């Protein structure tokens, strides 16, 4: 068991009040597992990704624990987190295009970064070069400035940098959304190869784009309105999803390869509830065709099958 998240609550401080963006999620990611994390924008998936590595100024840790390789990850304490970042947990941000200091040569930046983490750049250099080769880039990109690189190149460089210290967990946040289809494929494959080379133990791929997950993810975790809806092996989620939301989500994809899931979701009547004061009980019930009286109670996220958990009374009920 590489990553274990239990009952994690992280809220957003806004002027209107606390937005319960992440309201008690519990799941785990196994070694070597690439877990996809999908859902409409605003469902809290990015919040989840961020909170595992760095809570920004507006995020507030409420409760829950994160356990990585048996060690407690103190996500609530920015200072305590520092040793984990980069080494244990790392991220490929959605803004990869602009993630590098425009006025520093890439190599220089990496060396300054690693040195600042108490490492000797010289000792890492060769590995860095090897990985640059691996992602199919010319080694002298390190002697270049970010603006000299194309979007795809930047993307790949950032991936190399983020994984340079072989972190246990890599969070890839919307990394493909800004790219064209062919580059997407390349990037996706790179991720897999990173896992296969053991640069990263396990991975969380956050995306709108289920088709990408279909290509690379071992399992998919569907989130809705700050809570978990369903988690199962990729094939299971695609072929026989159990949660009504997931079903609508998947069925709304005419065929695999369609880009933005949430675009299609216009088809689902209604919109997600405001997370300022979310309704009690199942948060999907307002839009759920199957909703019934029980749904006013909070549905538990229960394993309905091996490695298949769902939060829905109907599903739980039928099996019970």
């Amino acid at each position, binding site marked *: 068991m590489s990553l274990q998240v239990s009952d994690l609550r992280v809220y957003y401080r*806004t002027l*209107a009040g606390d937005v319960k963006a992440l309201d008690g999620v519990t799941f785990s990611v196994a070694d070597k597992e690439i877990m996809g994390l999908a859902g409409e924008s*605003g469902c809290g998936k990015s919040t989840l990704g961020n909170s595992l590595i760095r809570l920004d100024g507006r995020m507030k840790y409420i409760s829950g624990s994160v356990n990585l390789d048996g060690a407690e990850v103190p996500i609530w304490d920015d200072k305590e987190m520092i040793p984990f970042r980069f080494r244990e947990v790392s991220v490929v941000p959605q803004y990869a295009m602009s993630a590098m200091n425009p006025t520093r040569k890439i190599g220089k930046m990496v060396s300054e970064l690693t040195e600042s983490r108490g490492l000797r750049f010289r000792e890492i250099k060769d590995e860095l070069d090897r990985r640059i080769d691996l992602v199919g880039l010319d080694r002298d990109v390190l002697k270049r400035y970010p603006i000299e690189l194309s979007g795809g190149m930047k993307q790949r460089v950032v991936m190399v940098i983020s994984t340079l210290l072989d972190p246990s967990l890599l969070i890839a946040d919307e990394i493909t959304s800004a790219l064209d289809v062919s580059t997407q494929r390349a990037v996706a494959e790179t991720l897999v190869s990173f896992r296969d080379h053991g640069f990263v133990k396990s991975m969380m791929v956050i995306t709108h784009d289920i088709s990408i997950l279909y290509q690379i993810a071992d399992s998919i975790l569907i989130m809705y309105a700050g809570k978990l809806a369903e988690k199962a092996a990729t094939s299971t989620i695609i072929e026989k999803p159990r949660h009504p939301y997931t079903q609508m989500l998947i069925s709304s994809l005419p065929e695999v390869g369609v880009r933005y899931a949430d675009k299609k979701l216009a088809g689902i009547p209604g919109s997600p509830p405001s997370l300022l004061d979310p309704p009690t009980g199942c948060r999907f019930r307002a839009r759920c065709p199957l909703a019934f009286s029980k749904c006013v109670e909070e549905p538990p996220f229960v394993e309905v099958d091996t490695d298949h958990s769902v939060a829905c009374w109907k599903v739980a009920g039928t099996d019970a």
Partner: protein
Amino acid sequence: MTAMTGTASEKSPSADDAGNVPVPAAKRARGEFLFFTLRSKKFVISVSILLLLAIVAILGPVVDSTDPLAQEMLPMRHPTLDPGNWFGTTYFGEDVFAQFANGLRASFFIGFLGGGLAAIIGMLVGFLAGYRGGWVDEILNMITNIFLVIPTLAVLLVVTSYLQARGVLFEAIFIGGTSWPWAARAIRAQTFSLRSRDFIDLAKLSGRPGWKVIVFEIAPNMSSYLFLTYILLFGGAILIAASLDFIGLGPTGGMSLGLMMFNAVTWAALQLGIWWWFVPPGVGIIAVVGALYVMNVGLDEIFNPKLREM
């Protein structure tokens, strides 16, 4: 104004979405904007200072209607509470408060008009240079440079020597006509970066004439930025006016804060201990310009959530 321009010239304070906060966008925008406008200490304080001064500038001359140049009172009178003498009197027995109120009026006027004119010229040049690029850009750049290096004082000397009397209006126009270059450069840079955005290309492809693209696509997209620029020009104009007045090139006949300062110095207010003649204009200018600059940053933070202190 010095490096204040640095702020405006380089970064576009265009609002960006504050992370994936699941609150309906429209509501968030409206709500937070208003909320922040009222919550931003910088904005509220500066605006209230400006309002207060504006009230003095507008109502002052009405309440205390004495002609600022009338030498009807006891000369060099200390400020007292009795009406008409709140700020004391000058060496000539002129009512300092009347001068201050009218001077403030003039300064606001100069800032408003001079700053406005500069902003307009700056936009015309900046938009055109940034949008058209090429040789248009080159030429406009050169003109901008020329205006940057010519000691405008020289030009002013020539012009004034032809005018029998020069009013506040003239001063405002002159300042407006000479203080636009940095704004032009800043706006040019902004336009340049906007020009390459998809929606602009779209507009272009849709065959709209250049000026329409500028007016309906580019300008709105940097409206907040333009406004901030205007604020800086507003304050700058007031300071420039003060310097001109101080070397005796200010308005003749009229009254302005700079002119008050100039007179106070010419007639040895400091050495004669008539501090109440010398202090108000200086403090007045500092208050107006300072408040404007603070407002500038306050608004910037409102337009651009990232900048807010959390």
